[in-house]
């Protein structure tokens, strides 16, 4: 964490709650994005991200400044997403039927054509991710999409590096199959 971040943390802990917003603002979008990829729907994603930020505020004293703040938030988010999944106890709905996701994509896209392209890519990626188990998805997202190291991912997930490697290996295998099924031309040059 940089000096500015440390100062903001100290201010919040000293009772200046208004310092919390500039502290978490840089991570708001990435938290929501990761939550969406984990939960598979926008409603749960927002709930998980909100709970993450609330818990981060409440338990800010437990944050260790030598650790990445983003990774600390990701660790909380993974737990919140798990809780939601356990509460819901049903699989996420396919993306195409979720009105909220559609609205978010259209609202944030630069134009109709780009929004359509974005929805296409999101659909492809999210469909590929459905091939993974919840555990594999968490690890794959943290390592290959958010680019945490194996050790950082293990710490965020509260597990060992060996477990991360095993699940990551499985996840990449499944993702390879899923991607090559959808994009067979990727394998053309190597078959």
């Amino acid at each position: 964490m940089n000096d500015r971040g440390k100062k903001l943390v100290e201010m919040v802990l000293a009772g200046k709650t208004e310092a919390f917003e500039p502290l978490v603002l840089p991570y708001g979008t990435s938290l929501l994005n990761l939550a969406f990829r984990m939960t598979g729907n926008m409603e749960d994603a927002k709930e998980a991200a909100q709970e993450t930020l609330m818990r981060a505020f409440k338990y800010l004293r437990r944050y260790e400044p030598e650790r990445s703040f983003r990774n600390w938030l990701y660790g909380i988010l993974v737990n919140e997403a798990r809780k939601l999944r356990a509460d819901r106890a049903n699989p996420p709905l396919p993306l195409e039927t979720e009105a909220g996701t559609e609205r978010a994509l259209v609202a944030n896209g630069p134009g109709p054509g780009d929004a359509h392209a974005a929805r296409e890519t999101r659909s492809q990626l999210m469909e590929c991710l459905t091939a993974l188990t919840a555990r594999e998805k968490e690890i794959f997202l943290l390592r290959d999409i958010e680019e945490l190291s194996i050790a950082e991912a293990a710490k965020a997930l509260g597990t060992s590096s060996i477990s991360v490697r095993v699940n990551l290996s499985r996840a990449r295998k499944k993702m390879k199959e899923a991607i090559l099924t959808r994009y067979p031309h990727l394998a053309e040059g190597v078959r």
Partner: protein
Amino acid sequence: MNCWRIRRSIPLLAGNDLPEQKARRLRAHLERCEMCRNEFRRYSAALNKVKELADRETPPEWTNAEWRALMARTTSARVEKRPFVSPVFGPKPMTALARGLAVAVPAVVIGLVLWNTVLKPKSSPVIPAPAYVRKPELTPPAVAPGQQDIRKEKEPAVRTQEKSIIVARPPKAERSAPRPNEPAAAPKEGSQDVVSVTLVSQDTGLKVVWFLDKNFEWKGEGK
């Protein structure tokens, strides 16, 4: 390494997640084996495609209203107070319990071992006999001519060895001299004035109690 083992590690190699030494071995194999090399390329292409898809995504955003409401709700809560941290056992109760047990169990085991080996008091401490204690002579005294030896009638054919000891009075000079490590001054208040020595014969069960004063002077005999 054979191809089967190599292929198990290719997913991690594609993401640069293997230790350098193992990665070097795998790459050396990939240079020789075309099938494994193609498999590695497929993994790399798939991973690159996933990253490309992720980068092309338009991430969902909070609306201003949502973000304001969230911040207002979040900061209305209170930051957790500084938790009590025991200087010895740490912050969490279960951790404290585990640490306490980790200290207590070995301490009890070590204590029991020490008690049984070193510290346990002996039931009958062996006091070295003074120089004036002599062992009984096993040869009977000579019987005067014409006197009947009554012991021959009472004693069994095989004579049992006498186990008791006889404590003789020390020579007078020795009695009057102060013992080493013993102050010659007046006895302390509350110190023991009378010592009793009980002698028991293991064969006959005959018991004799001798009373001695603090200077080990003979005071009397009892039963």
